[in-house]
């Protein structure tokens, strides 16, 4: 994942959006697919790596679950929300410029 210019990868963007509510890994995959009308399919290996990186960065956190429960749930942190807000601003700039120069609505 390249955060150098502040742009999130599509996977990270949809993971963070999905974790506005607590979800486990498979829940994130399903939610990202549903939000994007089936376009974004996060593969399990890629998702696992991304979750670990986001945990390290403190953008998401693991919920203390019951010990018997196998499926760990994650949720976004305040820092993660800030990152998402900034990303929205960046995406708006991209859209504004694209619409202004290319036309369309």
């Amino acid at each position, binding site marked *: 994942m390249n955060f150098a210019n502040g742009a999130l990868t*599509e*996977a990270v963007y949809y993971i963070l959006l999905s974790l506005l509510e607590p979800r486990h890994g498979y829940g994130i*995959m399903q939610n990202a697919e549903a939000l994007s009308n089936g376009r974004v399919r996060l593969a*399990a290996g*890629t998702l696992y*790596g991304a979750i670990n990186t986001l945990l390290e960065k403190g953008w998401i956190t693991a919920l203390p679950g019951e010990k018997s429960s196998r*499926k760990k749930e994650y949720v976004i942190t305040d820092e993660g929300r800030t990152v998402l807000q900034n990303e929205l601003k960046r995406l708006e700039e991209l859209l504004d410029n694209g619409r202004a120069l290319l036309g369309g609505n």
Partner: protein
Amino acid sequence: MKTIHKVFFVWEFDKEERWLNEMAAKGQLLTDVGFCRYVFEDGEPGVYQYRLELLEDAPSSPEGHSYIRFLEDTGAEQVGTLLRWVYFRKRTEDGPFDLFSDFDSRIAHLRRMLVMLTPILPLMICSSVLQFHNLGSWVGIVTGAVGLLVTYGIVRIILKIRRLQKERAISEG
């Protein structure tokens, strides 16, 4: 049940994966793996999709275990392990089965193969050189040949990584 002996080199893992999926499409479902050994059981054709991955940690380590459990929670099933390789399958009706969906994770996977292969080279070169004075020695010939083969594999993997890096420079997934 039938056992097939077949050789795939590390850098041919995608070819190996294709072969396992062709077998599965014919109703030959992989149920166990060993060194150059594949065990198949008769089953319904096309029910499973197979994928294999070289893990960063041993499948039996806590890290490897936690990864395999994560994949199992997404509907995948571990068929077998061979050193750090894990063979997974998932029912076709549960949707497409991929382990990686972006360039970064695909590149990281290939890098793990490089890290595994590269230490073999100095060993082989040293051994060949030490045996060089003794040209008839089969040890020198074998280690030299293995060294050449591993070099070839490393070049193949590096070329694959380069191609992915080029694509990553202009797009995401």
